[in-house]
């Protein structure tokens, strides 16, 4: 699979690393000398220095043979242009774009961009969730966000109060790490009973996190 990324910053860097680790062929276009040098020394991506909205540089990055293009710049008109030219001129089948102004999501959809990451909306949503549900907190993410460890404090309306771990219908890909009860650390076993006020540490895949919170908090 051949992927072209037009973007900068840490997100682009980590994506390149992850994609290459998965065996994908990655090209990246960026117009900053220093950033290009950095990528070239730290990754095995094909690094093209130039304007990613210019068909010339897209062609150099192998756009004719690419399967996917990701437009991740902080400039929405650029991202739209990249995806459209990739689709109409180079016939790249899959186009992904970040939108920086949340209002542009609908617009991009109407103008033919296939998959849109509304980063501002996503981050605001995450912050909102955190602020609203304070008895849930994300402690750490490992492997660049592919595994989360979070803490959930069990409230009185939690449906699992008084049940043992064995009795809880826990979805797959969720593990009870430990329970902190009145400063005591308990390593949970099947017959450990859950009580109100328990701080539970759970290990989940990010996409299963909402499901886990639902089981623990009943929302």
């Amino acid at each position, binding site marked *: 699979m051949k992927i072209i990324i037009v973007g900068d910053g840490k997100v682009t860097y980590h994506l390149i690393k992850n994609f290459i680790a998965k065996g994908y062929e990655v090209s990246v276009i960026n117009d900053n000398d220093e950033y290009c040098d950095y990528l070239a020394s730290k990754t095995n991506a094909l690094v093209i220095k130039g304007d990613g*909205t*210019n*068909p*010339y540089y897209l062609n150099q990055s192998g756009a004719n043979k690419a399967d996917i293009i990701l437009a991740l710049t902080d*400039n*929405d*008109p*650029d991202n*739209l*242009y990249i995806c*459209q*030219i990739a689709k*109409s*001129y180079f016939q790249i089948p899959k186009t992904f774009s970040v939108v920086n*102004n949340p*209002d*542009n999501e609908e*617009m991009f959809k*109407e*103008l033919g961009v296939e998959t849109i990451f509304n980063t501002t909306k996503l981050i605001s949503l995450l912050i909102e969730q955190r602020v609203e549900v304070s008895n849930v907190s994300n402690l750490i993410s490992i492997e660049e966000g592919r595994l989360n460890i979070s803490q959930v404090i069990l409230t009185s309306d939690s449906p699992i109060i008084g049940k043992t771990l064995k009795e809880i219908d826990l979805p797959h890909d969720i593990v009870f790490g430990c329970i902190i009860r009145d400063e005591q650390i308990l390593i949970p076993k099947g017959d450990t009973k859950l009580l109100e006020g328990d701080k539970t540490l759970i290990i989940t895949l990010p996409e299963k996190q909402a499901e886990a919170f639902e089981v623990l908090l009943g929302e």
Partner: protein
Amino acid sequence: MYIVIIGCGKTGSAVADLLSKNGEDVVVIDKDNSAFNKLSPDFTGFTINGDATEVEVLLESKINKADMAIVTTEVDTVNSMVAQIAKDIYEVPKVIVKINEPDKATIYNNTDILTISPTDLFIDELRDRLAKDDSEVLNEESLT
């Protein structure tokens, strides 16, 4: 005619002055407030200070009611986005875009958006004049 002009640079301001002088209803949008200083004192249209890639700004200009949109900013990707929003989403009957880099004009292939490229116009004009000069030289030569 109701005309929305996006970008009040050298081109946009001159176009706005021209159309306003011709008696059209003109609105000019630019994200830099000082850009409007380029308009002539006789300009009778409206100005809106804002980024035209933001939908609220375009709606403030009532682009959905415009007969024509003329997109003249210095940035081709901005022009492309605004022109498409005007044409495809707000169905402005006539959308005209200034092309800064001719390489980037391919995006308008197979669309109803009209393009004007100052670079290409210059080249065409130059070619014509050179051809004319050559033929004049030839004529002079044939006379002698």
